[in-house]
């Protein structure tokens, strides 16, 4: 069964915490509880989600565009919704402080962006190997050099190899729901991995959107650290002679084998998360009109821009389908192969110069010459839907009307 709770967690359902919130079964909370509309920025959405998330420890550090969100969690702490909160001294330190808290059995939350993600980076594979189900929200922004605070998904490319679960929210609604759902999936004993819930900086964090919120007096059941597949470091279980990651200092076959099998296990844990993620967020992808010959496949804000482009093309009488990718890790190989099987032209608009999503898709499907990696924007440039339309026209050898064109 997917997304189960432990006996300890189930015994708390219906009980109240010290803020008078009721621990609620996640299935009821996400899919049945009444919702109220609110008009919030993405930063405020993070606050509202964490208010309901029974988080034990949050460590904060300023970096644009997540500073507001990180400070808002401080307000939640002052009001008693988060048990412990502090400002760390650098993202590298913050992610270590998060790790320490998770080792000690706490449900942990943090946020970062761009250069902060890069600063923190050594921690991410360590979190994975240590099986720490920490949630880090990544509000994607440009990476030096040159310096840019603007939206850019370049950092997600680096996250893909860490072994963490990686989800990419398009809208504030995605964001709200997934922040809560992330803990339920990540804390499953057969998963028990850190998760990066990504959104595009400014586009999601700083714009207001209508979000349907669950009741504020309903919260997630708390984390049960004894569901972890490795011992919690709290000296409440007998000390075994190992550390959280098996310490392989010998240069012999057994040590290499142990290291390799530990790595395979964490990769397996990511694969095992599929069966929990799919019912929780409604599939790893969403599709519209994938019988069309032309598809736009995207994640994050590029999906929103893709929707607009599809509307413009519809006005011109062209039928274009859409694939919204929600989870990058685990990567939806089968779903993408199925969704793209009819397409002759697969456009992958991205807010980064590498085109990492197009690379992922090309590696997943047959006849990958069908994939057109673009358009790409970077450094904070927006991606007007007209730019996507122009890319599609150009690729199809069609007449292109732009100011930069040669004229008719």
């Amino acid at each position: 069964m997917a997304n189960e709770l432990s006996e300890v967690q189930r015994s708390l359902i219906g009980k109240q915490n010290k803020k008078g919130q009721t621990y609620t079964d996640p299935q009821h909370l996400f899919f049945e509880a009444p919702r109220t509309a609110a008009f919030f920025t993405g930063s405020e959405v993070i606050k509202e989600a964490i208010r309901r998330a029974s988080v034990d420890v949050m460590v904060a550090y300023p970096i644009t565009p997540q500073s507001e969100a990180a400070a808002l969690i401080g307000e939640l702490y002052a009001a008693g919704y988060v048990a412990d909160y502090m400002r760390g001294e650098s993202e590298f330190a913050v992610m270590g402080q998060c790790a320490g808290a998770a080792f000690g059995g706490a449900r942990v939350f943090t946020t970062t962006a761009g250069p902060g993600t890069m600063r923190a980076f050594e921690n991410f594979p360590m979190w994975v190997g240590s099986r720490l189900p920490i949630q880090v929200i990544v509000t994607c922004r440009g990476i030096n050099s040159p310096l840019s605070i603007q939206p850019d998904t370049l950092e997600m490319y680096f996250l893909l190899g860490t072994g963490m679960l990686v989800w990419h929210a398009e809208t504030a609604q995605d964001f709200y729901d997934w922040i809560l759902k992330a803990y339920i999936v990540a804390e499953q004993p057969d998963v028990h991995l850190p998760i990066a819930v990504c959104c595009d900086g400014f586009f999601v964090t700083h714009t207001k959107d209508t979000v349907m919120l669950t009741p504020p007096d309903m919260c997630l059941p708390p984390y049960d650290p004894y569901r972890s597949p490795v011992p919690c470091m709290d000296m409440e279980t007998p000390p075994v002679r190992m550390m959280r990651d098996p310490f392989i200092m010998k240069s012999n076959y057994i040590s290499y084998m142990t290291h390799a099998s530990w790595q395979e296990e964490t990769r397996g844990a990511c694969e095992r998360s599929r069966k929990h993620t799919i019912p929780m967020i409604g599939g790893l992808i969403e599709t519209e009109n994938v019988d069309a010959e032309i598809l736009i496949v995207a994640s994050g804000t590029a999906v929103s821009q893709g929707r607009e482009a599809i509307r413009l093309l519809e006005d011109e009488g062209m039928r274009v389908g859409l694939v919204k990718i929600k989870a990058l890790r685990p990567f939806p190989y089968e779903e993408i192969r199925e969704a793209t099987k009819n397409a002759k032209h697969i456009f992958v608009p991205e807010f980064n110069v590498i085109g990492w999503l197009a690379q992922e898709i090309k590696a997943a499907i047959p006849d990958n010459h069908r994939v057109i990696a673009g358009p790409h924007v970077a450094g904070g440039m927006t991606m007007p839907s007209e730019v996507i339309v122009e890319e599609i026209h150009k690729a199809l050898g069609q007449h292109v009307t732009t100011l930069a064109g040669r004229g008719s």
Partner: protein
Amino acid sequence: MSKEKIQICPEFYDIMPPEYRDLVEQATYGKEGRGWKDIGQSKELIEDHSLCAGCPESMAFRYILASLPNPEDTVMVGSTGCTSLVFPHVAVHNIHSLFGNQNAIASGLKRALSVRFPGRIKDVVVLAGDGATVDIGLDMTLQAWFRQEKFTTICFDNELYANTGGQESGLMRKGFVAKMAPMGKTFEKVKLPEIARESGCAYVVNCTVSKPSLVEKVIRNAVLIAREIGPTYLQLYTPCILEIGKNSMEGLQEMRDSEKPGERFQYKEFMTDEAKKFLADMEAQKKQPAALAQA
């Protein structure tokens, strides 16, 4: 953890290794007044070690583990280096994370344990080498002290990076020749005990591990003060006999030579008034039952 949790399942008792049976039956978890004198008469909390024969770190490890006031509720945090080779053999939960981040890990760990076990003893003890403490981890070491995080930081100071072959570290003496300092270190040994005092540590000691009774005393003080008052720091000289060209038998004399009056590891302690009062009160309480008995 209640000592009752350290049990062997009866069905498996006969197939458990003798080391584990010994640990359950003879280890001094939960023993009042446990200390260095238990070594050799009870099961130590360190099984074996793969360090060099005669390594002062290995001596220090034994004294420290024998002297922790409540090992059944102590979690240790280490870092990469020679000490990390010993931790797989240590019978308290311990965490190896990234080089230099030990005080960040310990900060988060202590906070989580305080949230989850309010009012209960859960000691966090950091044990790392000089490279991890003063170079790559300096920012996190100091910031944990600035924030007044309640845990003990122990630095095994062998004045270089021993495990990687003997490179210069911040705690190496000026002029000493080592790898990456082929013409001798160009700047002074970092005054970390003084920096610890200025950074907000409530109790700081700089000494060698030549006397087990002294190690026992400073460990107990450091852990108990960190529990109640604020961060504590112990800089312990554990010379790398390999890198200073000595043999197995000569480590002890090296330490004795370095702690003579005027030498760099002469015993040095700093403590806040609050810590001083705390220790004085503790002494007075210990003497009280004896005084009553005499009366």
